[in-house]
């Protein structure tokens, strides 16, 4: 035993050590993953974000370097504070406060001392920065807007928030991501793929050098440049026309579904959302509860379509043989219906109305009659009503357009079940829903849906899904944007309707909106609308609505205009539509008087009314 004690101890310890090694290195060790090795700093290298061009290859969005002054508090040594403050254009209080705050957060970690230096300040500072130990300049990439328009279309980029970081592995704290418009729709194409540099750290968190000479580094892949369908000149013009007004203009090329302009008014200058005052500017825009400039009204504003909806009612009636193009009725300036002999007013002037002049004069009686006959005279069957509903939906209404715009609304096209739920114990009939016939009932649409509907009419029965992308550098655009979507109306039925729409300009509600040398087909609309003031439903001045396409043969533009509380259709929306059409087709505008009238008109008084806390008059 005396001889064996040390032998046994040695062997026991040997076995113990090897077991411990096995436990540490094999049993409790997961496979080596460089991303979990905290001895290696992962530095991401960001590729160039893709540029955005308009349809005429005008550069709209590019990148600009931005310079932040960074601080590592513990490395700061005594320095000439007066010179430093002068260089950065800050005062000493700011310097002291910021220094203390960063030092309290962490004396070791580099932090932003002053963000977004102007280019001139950077120039001066970059020569002097080495005099200030503990400070250095870091370059970042920001967007540069070469335009002041189209903020709603282009969108902006901002730092990712936590919920995105949790959902998507790609993003890390501090990364930038598209937040609206094209920037978000085409985020993956624009951002490219960031690269990674692996850097060896020491235990004081200092960089020692590149890991394995950069063998494992991942090279960033540059973002792709985009060409969008917007005609920036037309967009600019549209924004000018909408000056002082709320609403939207959507212009589409019916021959391919490309969105030529997507105006949301009022908008904002995209340059406000970059640079040092970004967050202040953003909050100002965000808090504007009257004009809501951050809301894209052409995509999100649901409203009653008003009279343009009569076009679809007419088409459906033709398709269902409820009327023919020769059918005529006599209008008494009202339409009487139901047992209680209720009356629907009409402002067409009265007299015999056929399809053509019913459209051009916007006769309510004619389309109320057509609607009733289409669905049923007494009570609609499920088949008849759903058939009508589907025909309406085939124009892209009541459903998401499913395109490449970041936001959208479904709108409402009621079906049989919709009303059955509303009136569970009541035998509802066509007359119950008669307001639908003049676009005033339960139907709701957005400006882009109206423009798309107009494009489908211009094409006599089909449309291409309206989209914003024209070209992606090095790849194809989604094939669904090249596919025709057919409506449920036979193309032959469009001929008489288009004749009627042409008459709107020639002799109807839009006759004073004619544009020389361009044959336009259009339809005015005036939509009642309501708001709640102190919980009470209050009617506001009607929305001015207009849809049009031109030229009548081989149309190249289909447009819808909504001017909120602009009163009757031809008043503002119609004028704007005519001016936009002339601008797009001719490249210049001859209707100078009209242009001046529109551009100078502000409806601010109208928009303030609901906030004044006193009764007001509407439709003045």
């Amino acid at each position, binding site marked *: 035993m005396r*001889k064996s004690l*040390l032998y046994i101890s040695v062997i026991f310890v040997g076995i113990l050590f090897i077991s*411990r090694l096995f436990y540490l290195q094999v049993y409790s*060790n997961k496979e080596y993953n460089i991303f979990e090795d905290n001895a*290696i700093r992962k530095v991401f290298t960001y590729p160039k974000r893709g540029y955005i061009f308009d349809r005429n290859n005008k550069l709209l969005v590019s990148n600009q370097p931005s310079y932040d002054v960074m601080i590592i508090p513990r490395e700061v040594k005594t320095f000439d504070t007066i010179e430093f403050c002068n260089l950065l254009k800050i005062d000493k209080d700011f310097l002291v406060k910021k220094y203390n705050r960063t030092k309290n957060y962490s004396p070791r970690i580099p932090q932003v001392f002053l963000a977004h230096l102007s280019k001139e300040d950077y120039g001066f500072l970059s020569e002097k920065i080495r005099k200030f130990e503990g400070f250095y300049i870091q370059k970042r990439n920001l967007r540069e807007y070469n335009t002041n328009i189209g903020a709603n279309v282009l969108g902006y980029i901002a730092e990712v928030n936590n919920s995105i970081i949790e959902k998507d592995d790609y993003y890390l704290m501090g990364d930038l991501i598209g937040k609206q418009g094209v920037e978000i729709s085409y985020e993956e194409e624009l951002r490219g793929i960031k690269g990674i540099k692996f850097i060896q*750290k020491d*235990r004081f968190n200092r960089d020692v050098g590149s890991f394995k000479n950069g063998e494992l580094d991942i090279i960033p892949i540059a973002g792709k440049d985009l060409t969008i369908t917007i005609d920036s000149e037309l967009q600019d013009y549209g924004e000018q026309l909408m000056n002082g007004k709320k609403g939207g203009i959507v212009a589409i090329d019916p021959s391919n579904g490309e969105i030529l302009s997507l105006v949301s008014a009022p908008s904002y200058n995209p340059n406000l959302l970059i640079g040092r005052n970004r967050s202040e500017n953003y909050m100002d825009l965000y808090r504007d509860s009257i004009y809501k400039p951050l809301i894209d009204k052409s995509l999100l504003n649901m409203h009653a379509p008003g009279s343009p909806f009569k076009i679809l009612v007419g088409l459906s009636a033709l398709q269902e043989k409820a009327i023919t193009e020769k059918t005529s009725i006599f209008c008494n300036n009202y339409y009487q219906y139901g047992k209680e002999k209720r009356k629907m007013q009409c402002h067409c002037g009265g007299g015999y109305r056929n399809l053509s002049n019913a459209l051009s004069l916007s006769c309510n009686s004619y389309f109320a009659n057509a609607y009733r006959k289409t669905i049923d005279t007494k009570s609609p069957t499920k088949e008849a009503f759903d058939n009508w509903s589907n025909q309406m939906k085939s124009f892209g209404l009541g459903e998401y357009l499913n395109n490449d715009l970041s936001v959208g609304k479904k709108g409402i096209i009621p079906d049989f079940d919709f009303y059955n739920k509303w009136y569970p114990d009541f035998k509802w009939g066509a007359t119950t829903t008669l307001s639908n016939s003049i676009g005033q009932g339960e139907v709701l649409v957005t400006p882009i849906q109206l423009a798309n509907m107009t494009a489908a009419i211009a094409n006599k029965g089909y449309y291409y899904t309206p989209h914003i992308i024209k070209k992606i550098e090095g790849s194809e655009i989604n094939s669904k944007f090249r596919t025709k979507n057919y409506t449920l109306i036979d193309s032959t039925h469009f001929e008489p309707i288009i004749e009627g729409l042409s008459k709107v300009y020639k002799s109807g509600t839009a006759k004073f909106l004619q544009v020389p040398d361009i044959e336009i087909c259009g339809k005015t609309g005036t939509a009642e609308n309501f708001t709640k003031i102190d919980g009470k439903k209050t009617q506001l001045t009607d929305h001015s609505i207009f849809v049009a396409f031109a030229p009548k043969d081989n149309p190249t533009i289909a447009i819808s205009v909504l001017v909120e509380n602009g009163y009757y259709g031809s008043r503002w929306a119609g004028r704007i539509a005519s001016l936009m059409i002339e601008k797009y087709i001719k490249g210049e505008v001859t209707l100078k008087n009209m242009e001046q009238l529109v551009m100078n008109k502000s409806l601010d008084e109208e928009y303030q009314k609901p906030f004044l806390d006193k009764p007001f008059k509407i439709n003045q």
Partner: protein
Amino acid sequence: MIGDRKNVFKVDKVLIILYVLLVGFGWGNIFSSSLSGNIDSIFNLNELYGKQIIFILLSSVLILITLSIEAKFYERFASIFYFISIISLIGLFIFGKTVNGSTSWYGLGSFTIQPSEFAKVATSLAVAKFISDLQTNIKLINHQVKLLVIIFLPATLIILQNDTGSTLVYLAFFFVLFREGIPKIYLYTISLIFLLVVSTIKFSLSTTFLISFVILFLNYIRTKKKRNSLLKHIGILFIAVTLSTSINYFYNNVIKQHQKNRISLWLRLENNPEEIEKMKRTILYNLNESEKAISSGGWIGKGYLEGTRTIGKFVPEQQTDYIFSTVGEEWGFIGSSFIVILFILLLLRILHLSELQKNQFSRVYGYSVASILFFHFLVNIGMVMGLVPTIGIPLPFFSYGGSSLWAFTILLFIFIKLDSNKLNEW
């Protein structure tokens, strides 16, 4: 001269090979853990790996000297070596240089030397000399006391210089004394104290009382028939109770907080995860980094010079006491086990050769060498892997440092010399 040459050829080749392997791997790992930036030359004296190369070259000179000296010389002059060693330790109180709180170095310019490393060699020689003396009877209590004085004199001087690690090494001589025949009661007492320490600190005083009582009671019933059995058991129980009470007092009131922390860590007394996280950043920092580095090695390691935690210098003291963490990270389980096996083979070989010695001096000396190396091996690697409380002593042949390398080299090669001479002992 002819005789000398013969002896050189009779040196144990296994030991030489193991020594060369250990020193070689040691340098390789020092190179890896002290590497920074570009390498101009491995002899760059501004870098630790460059200095270690010089230390290694000087070691080979020491080996030649050690082997060329007549074997009898070591036995004859053992007392002189011991005396010189004691003087050099005392001299530290006057001329010593303080590094990391311990006054254990003589400084010659930028060059330092640590006499406590060499004191192990001198003490081993003195112990061997005393035990092998024909007049010594280790069973006699006054001879045992003399031996303890020989062992604890340098140990006391070293602990006065505030170098706990080097002091504790002298506990290793217990193996030697036990092998040479001190009564078994010492082994039992040491085992009892060890168990009482662990039980008292890990569990509690009352638990320890209870367990001692139950064990002794059961043992008493088993051995009831013997005379004086009751008295003996009550005596042991009394001793155990007294000991554990004093251990409890000692742990709570006498030892320093940092030592208390080390014991607390070793016995895993802290269970609160938040506290453990806090400790990982403070007192547990070195150990935690070292365990992380070793764990990250996996089966085959990250590859030589590619250990990310080694390159980043995450483990403090990595070239000296924590050198094994480099092995763990860069060579993985396979490499680390290989090094452990090399040490085991070295120890077993020394033990085997010691038992073959015909001369008692050589045997006792060999046993001392094995015991000291074993203690260093156990404490150093055990500490780096969290099995032993943190005690700062180097890994023999591996850790950076001239004094320790030379002292271990002399320690081992005197034995190799003695062993080569065993045929001439008759």
